[in-house]
């Protein structure tokens, strides 16, 4: 009984939501990117760049907002790098992504040392404060969802809704989905495929940067070497597991985050490595067709002009 109480407690729900935030944001970035036909293995590096950018921006200006904007800028620029390489220069997309990850991992640490004269961590900066929503916070039990939570929580839910709406209820989304499956047909119908791709990849970079900023200036108050710690790859798994759909990304991120939250908040007898492994095993099983077919964007990964 005690165990059930631990698992289905408000604390677990809040912990799950919090851990799902960066996964959801990056995973939706991945959805947009892959729908445009570009595979982005650089999600990890883009999140890391954003995490660093947020701390640097906050440190130099003293403003959290500037930190977030800087994270968006740095993430967007990393996305632009991937876009230019893949679209303009036809670099193999997987290779570009791997290169960006290694570059970001090294460059953030080099700059950390250059700015703060420390190895692998920054000085502490101001954290983004939580907010309470007047009125709603007074509701019994679920009021806690609206009391002292990070604004990122609400922004993330908003982004999920907007991304889903744009993708399935607007012309822009329809075109994006066609580009992912039949770029030639889209081109023939007069859609500027190249423009869609650039915008999608840069947008993905910005979402990853935003996700990274959550790790560094919301969950924490400093940058630490390789602090994304595989969440980028997990977000990629969520993109696939969620069926390349923003709502699917969100639900999957919640599932993966739940497994992580159990690991931290509940005293279970399951070894933590098995819980850590879970998202990847589940995604692999889904890919192998266990429990239904998944089909990603058909033309994802090949740009041949």
């Amino acid at each position, binding site marked *: 009984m005690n165990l059930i109480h631990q698992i289905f407690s408000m604390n677990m729900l809040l912990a799950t939501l919090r851990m799902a935030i960066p996964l959801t944001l990056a995973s939706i970035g991945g959805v947009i990117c892959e729908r445009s036909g570009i595979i982005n*293995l650089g999600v990890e590096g883009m999140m890391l760049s954003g995490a660093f950018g947020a701390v640097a921006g906050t440190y130099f200006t003293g403003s959290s907002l500037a930190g977030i904007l800087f994270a968006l800028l740095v993430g967007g620029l990393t996305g632009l790098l991937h876009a230019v390489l893949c679209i303009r220069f036809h670099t193999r997309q997987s290779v570009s992504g791997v*290169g*960006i990850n290694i570059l970001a*991992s090294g*460059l953030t640490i*080099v700059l950390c040392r*250059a700015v703060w004269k420390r190895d692998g961590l920054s000085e502490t900066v101001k954290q983004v404060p939580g907010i309470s929503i007047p009125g709603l916070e007074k509701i019994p039990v679920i009021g806690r969802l609206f009391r002292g939570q990070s604004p990122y929580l609400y922004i993330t839910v908003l982004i999920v809704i907007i991304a889903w709406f744009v993708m399935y209820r607007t012309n822009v989304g329809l075109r994006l989905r066609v580009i992912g499956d039949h770029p030639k047909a889209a081109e023939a119908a007069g859609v500027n495929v190249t423009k869609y791709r650039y915008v999608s990849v840069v947008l993905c970079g910005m979402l990853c940067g935003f996700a990274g900023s959550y790790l560094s200036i919301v969950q924490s108050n400093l940058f630490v070497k390789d602090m994304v710690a595989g969440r980028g790859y997990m977000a990629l798994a969520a993109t696939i597991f969620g069926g390349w759909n923003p709502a699917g990304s969100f639900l999957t991120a919640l599932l993966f985050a739940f497994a992580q939250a159990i690991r931290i908040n509940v005293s279970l007898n399951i*070894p933590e490595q098995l819980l850590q*492994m879970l998202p990847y095993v589940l995604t692999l099983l889904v890919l192998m067709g266990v429990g239904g077919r998944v089909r990603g964007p058909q033309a994802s990964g090949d740009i041949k002009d």
Partner: protein
Amino acid sequence: MGSADMRSFLAFLGRSLAAVLLSFAVSALIMLVSGYNPALAFASMIRGSFGSANSFANTLSKSVPLIFAGLACAYANKGGIFNIGCEGQLYMGAFVSTVTALSLRGMPRLFVIIASILTGMAAGAAVGSFNGFLKAKMKLNEVVVAIMLNYICRFFTSFFVSGILKDPDSETPQTLPVGEHYMFSKLIPKTQLTTALFLALIAALAMFFFFRETRAGYNVRAVGENGAAAEASGINVARTMILTMAVSGGLAGLTGVTEVFGKSERFIDGFSPGYGFTGIAIAFLAGNHPLGILLSALLFGIIQAGSMKMSYEAGVSTSMISVIQGLVILFVATPELVSIRIGRRRTA
């Protein structure tokens, strides 16, 4: 070598050199902007890796796992498969070979070493061929599968070395030592250079002759260049792909084996500093040529071995090596960018 071959070889050499030079130039720029002295940094790096006989021996020893990782990626590339699963494969290789040696303790040295090498290779090959199977038979993207397998292998090994196989006297998750007796022999005392170097050289030569002289090697390349054409000419494409990934995974497994039996003496949780990913850079830089990989692995060995001295003397973080490595991957993988630069210079 015909003149056309020669020309394409020179073009390739030019691209690789240009990519390396551009990476160093951009790295220098980054150091300059960050307030460091790039000339001093590079000079220290060279001194750190070539300064004495011992430091050069250590440079060579750093190159050994990189040679295997580079060969692993190159072998898969030749067969048209991008193997970013080396990381998981090398963890499994290191893990299984360690377990083998630990369970055969007391047996004759040569027997234990050979058994460990073979089981380590087999473990890497098993992970690789599973990846190849999913690509060949279920048409799954090998890269995405490899990412999942990397984490699964990583946590699988972590589970055992944090639990039932953990050295009870140690704070960190790692196995018991396999014992000095079962390690590769040191070529030079007080360095980490061991006979594993010969194993790496043999692997590179074997791969060179395999692709040059054998029918099987030709088949692998044929599948890599054009799967449909290979199928039409009677090659079993699916089988070739699975075998390609098995060999690639086996080579990646050897990366892990040499790390345990040449250096750490045991399986340490999370030991790899990303050898599998460095292997990608090495393979691309060498144009997947087995002998070229010896050179590009040496280059990365130099960078890694010299990074401590660079950090000490020029103040730059040792992570500068990741910056250089990432840039090399991006530049080598973008031949159009590099050739545009060269082209412009020529027309100017």
